[in-house]
Every structure is written in C-alpha cells, then in structure tokens.
C-alpha cells in the first residue's frame, strides 16, 4: 500500500460544495481507494440467478480484481479468488460454465469448487505439508440480499444490511415489480470501457441535471417522456440515503401521472399477461400502486446502479480507466415484460447505446479536462440552499441538484479518513 495520507489532507481535498480535481486523476489516490474502499467495503459482485445450478460459476470482480462467483456442489454460493496458491496461475480462464473442480494447468493442483485443495501431482514431494492451508482464497465476507451477492475483503465491519441502510427499500421496490418477487440476470452483460475515473460514472448515475442536455439528441426524436422527468418543473427528488447511496426518486412524477406502467413508457393493455400475473400476486390495488411507482433509479455505493430497467456494475481499472458492465433486468415470471426490457436495454445502453455512448463521451471529456491546471476544483453546490429532510430523515433535493454527489463525497471522505 502507498503512503498513508494524513487525515487532514482529505478534508483539504473534499469540501461540502466542491472537491479537488486530483481525486479523479492522481494515481496515488487511486491506490489508496483500492485499499480503503474496494478491498474493504461491501462491493456488489453478482446475482444468484447467474449461477442457478450446482457447480455453476461466473467470473465477476471486486475492484480491478477478478473473483469467481461459484455455486458449489452443496448449492452454497461462494466467492473464490482465481489464483493458485502454488505459483499464482489462474485456475480458470473461461468466463463462465459448470465445473465441480478447478485444475491449475501449471502443475495440476486441483481444487474443489468450495476452494479446498483436493490434490496435487506427485504428492510424495509434499511430505509434512498441511494441505488444508493451501486451498483457494475466498473473499472474507459474503452476504446475499434477495439474490444480490455482495463481498467484502475486510474480515469485519458493518453488516451488509447496516451498509445498505435506506437503500434496501430500492432493492425491495425493484423485486416487487416481479410477480414472483424476484429479479433475474439472464441476458449476459455488455461491457463498455472508458478512459475516465470511476467516480465520474458513480456521480453521473443520479445526476438529474444532465439528461436534458447530454441526451437531447434522442429525446428530441424519440417519443420519450424521460426529458420531462429531469426538467426544471419536475417534482422528482434526489435523495441521499447515507453511506454513499443515492437515488433519483421519480415516483412523485409517476404518481402525478397516475397511470400504471407509464413509468415504462407503455400501458396495461400492451402487457396483459404481466398485469394479470401482478394482480394475482399482489391483489389489484397493490399491483396498481407497484405499476404506477415502477422500479428505482438508485446508485448503491460504490458500484451497483439499479437504473429502472437495467443493472449497471461500475468497475475501476486504473485512475483513468473504468468498465461499465450492464444488462437488462428481468422479472421472474414476466416473459412479455422481459422481452421489452431487453430490447430497450440494447437500444439505450452499452458502447453503441442511444444514451450511454454520450454519457461515456462526457466522462472522457471530464477526465481530459482535469489536465488543465485552473480551476483546480469541481463545483458541486447546486441546490445546497434547498436541501431538506424527508419523512425518513434522508436529505432530499430537486431532481436536478448536486445533492447525490455531495452525499457520495461525504461518505467517500469518511472511508478515506478511516484508519
């Protein structure tokens, strides 16, 4: 790890309404972030629906580091590190599959998919060696909430539920949109590389100020009502849940419309099977409420963005390089709805998407802009004068305010200052 940065240094870089540009482009700060955030805090890894069967595995990540998410032969979900304890070779080089064991190609050490070392070649050379100490390493803590798998590289710390806090509501709200109360990730991920710091992506997810400008090209030609949600007259709210979790709460706008499935730009007539399944599952009244509110637009710190019909995972690679992994959300028991979510996702996000190509263009321009020496700071003060508390005590502001960024930086500072 790089040199410890004195506590006061973070206070000199992160103020309440502005942050210093070096936070996005100093490689030393990036190294400290890996230790204090990515390899310590709870990080979203994957979803249990990606490994439905025993012995399924898929390659995921914590920060720049690959992680194998495995369902072992007993059915338990595990997060293993793909590094042979012998010489460091990868024990698995395919992205996903179904395997009961992993064999290192270098000297044929073989591991069960719970990480245990089962055997090595020519074992007589290892007399006196304790085999049980030479298994694959595991992510020290794993916790699963409604199928969302999180890992923490720290052996102790807050529980996942303590970490998620108020943002649990977003996951609950999302899952309720499925007639079976579960989401699935079954469509595979698009992976979008960008020459930008991960925090530009993180902050943009709940920046309700940019859509009318960055996405003007598509809003002006498609029959989209998204632009109105982020206009000056919008009643939507930005919210800071604490612990770095933020959202744009669009429910006030959807409740004003009072039309089920309007949030998805469609109507109940077009998705009759889904509507029937929702009414059977929740009763007509509750189903109507769920279908008016729709799904959340919530950024769970540091890397899980639930973007209404998509799920994004933000991965830092270097101080100026990141990957956005994105897939369509799928509601268990809703094939007609799911098909539309896949189609809309392919149109709007990923490297060629109508929306995300332009967001990502902005991230790269932001990053390059920081090579210009003056001003040294970024200004995050929009709406500071109109922050208020909602009925649950969370800070809320106008849809277009910088309130989410301020919440992210408040939490970031506390993590970086922690010993």
């Amino acid at each position, binding site marked *: 790890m790089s040199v410890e940065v004195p506590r006061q240094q973070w206070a000199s870089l992160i103020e309440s309404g502005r942050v210093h540009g070096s936070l996005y482009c100093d490689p030393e700060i990036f190294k400290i972030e890996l230790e204090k955030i990515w390899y310590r805090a709870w990080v979203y890894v994957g979803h249990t629906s990606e490994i439905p069967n025993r012995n399924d595995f898929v390659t995921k990540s914590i920060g720049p580091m690959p992680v194998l998410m495995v369902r072992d032969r007993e059915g338990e979900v595990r997060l293993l590190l793909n590094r042979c304890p012998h010489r460091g070779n990868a024990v698995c080089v395919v992205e996903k599959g179904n395997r009961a064991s992993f064999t290192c190609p270098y000297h044929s050490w073989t591991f069960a998919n719970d990480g245990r070392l089962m055997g090595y070649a020519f074992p007589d050379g290892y007399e006196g060696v304790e085999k049980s100490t030479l298994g694959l390493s595991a992510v020290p803590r794993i916790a699963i909430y409604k199928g969302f798998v999180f890992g923490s590289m720290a052996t102790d710390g807050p529980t996942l539920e303590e970490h998620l806090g108020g943002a649990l509501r977003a996951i609950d709200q999302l899952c309720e949109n499925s007639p079976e109360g579960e989401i699935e990730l079954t469509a595979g991920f698009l992976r979008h590389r960008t020459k930008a710091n991960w925090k530009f992506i993180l902050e943009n997810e709940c920046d309700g100020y940019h859509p009318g400008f960055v996405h003007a090209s598509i809003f002006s030609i498609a029959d989209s009502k998204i632009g109105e949600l982020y206009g000056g007259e919008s009643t939507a709210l930005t919210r800071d849940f604490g612990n770095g979790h933020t959202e744009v709460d669009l429910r006030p706008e959807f409740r004003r419309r009072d039309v089920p499935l309007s949030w998805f730009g469609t109507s109940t007539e077009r998705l009759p099977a889904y509507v029937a399944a929702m009414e059977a599952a929740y009763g007509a009244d509750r189903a109507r409420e769920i279908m008016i509110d729709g799904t959340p637009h919530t950024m769970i710190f540091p890397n899980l963005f639930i973007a209404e019909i998509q799920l994004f995972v933000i991965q830092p690679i270097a101080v100026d390089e990141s990957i956005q992994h994105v897939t369509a959300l799928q509601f268990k028991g809703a094939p007609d709805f799911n098909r539309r979510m896949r189609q809309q996702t*392919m149109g709007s996000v990923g490297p*060629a998407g109508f929306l995300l190509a332009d967001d990502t263009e902005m991230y790269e321009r932001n990053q390059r802009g920081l090579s210009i020496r003056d001003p040294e700071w970024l200004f995050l003060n929009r709406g500071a004068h109109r922050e208020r508390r909602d009925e649950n005590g969370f800070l809320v502001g106008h849809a277009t305010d910088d309130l989410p960024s301020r919440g992210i930086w408040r939490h970031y500072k506390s993590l970086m200052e922690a010993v």
Partner: protein
Amino acid sequence: MATDGGLLQEVSQFLYHEARLQDTHAYDDWEALWDDDAVYWVPANGEDTDPEREMSFIYDNRSRISLRIKQLKTGKRHSQTPPSKLARIISNIELLDSADSQIRVAANAMIFESNLRGDTVWAARNEYTLRRVGDILKMSRKKVALVNNDKPIYTLSFLV
C-alpha cells in the same frame, strides 16, 4: 460455392460502396441501402449468441436503424460530435451462397477510428445478406462480429 466472377465483382463493389458511405458519414445514403426487413446486428460475448434472448451491442430492426440515423443527424449525438474520422478496409470477400434473389457474403473488416479520445483499431468478421431488388442490391442483414466482443470495448457510435 463455385466462383461467379461477375457476381463477386458486383458484391465487392457493393461492400466497398457501403464502407465508403460509413467512413464518410453519408447517413441517408447508407440508410437507403437497407431493405425493409433489415437486421443490423453487432453481437456481444461471442458470435453465436441468441439476440432475442441475450444482450448485443446493436440489434436494430429497420425502424431502429432509422432512429439511429436520425440521432446522428441531430448534430447533438455528442459521441459523434465531432464525427470520428474513419478508414476501413474490407477484405477476404467470400460468396457463401446465393439462391433466388438472396446472396450471403462474408468479409473481414479492419477499421481505423480517430476521435477525441484517441486512435482505435477495430477488427470484425462480417456477414451480409444482400437481396436483388430490381436492378440494385439491398442489404437485408448485416452481422458485425467484432473479434474482441467478449471484452470491454470503447464507445462504438460510428456506423460499424
């Protein structure tokens, strides 16, 4: 299939023409190459995925191609403002089969892109289904299998 020199020549000229329209951002002319049943497909995570079930970088029908072109023409498609500078080589053109008015063709593409981010080289194995409509060829399907489509890729907002 047996080489049909005349057909190969005609198809090659069509593919070079399409490449030039893409390289020069001649959006309307490029769109006019498409037939009504168009499928413009850029798969992700391999070449043999099911685009009806799995994510693709692009999986456009005729109306979505039209939307893509309209967006580029607004002048506010920021990732193409300024437009990428492009030159592509289309090579290894091979007639796969032709029956009735349909011709299936394979080709490799190597594309050099220069934009604000920097310079990027793209490589793809392409497959086309062309159709004879009156005196001209139209494109009814184009599949662009980027060789690195199983890895994270940079923004791809020019016409590939």
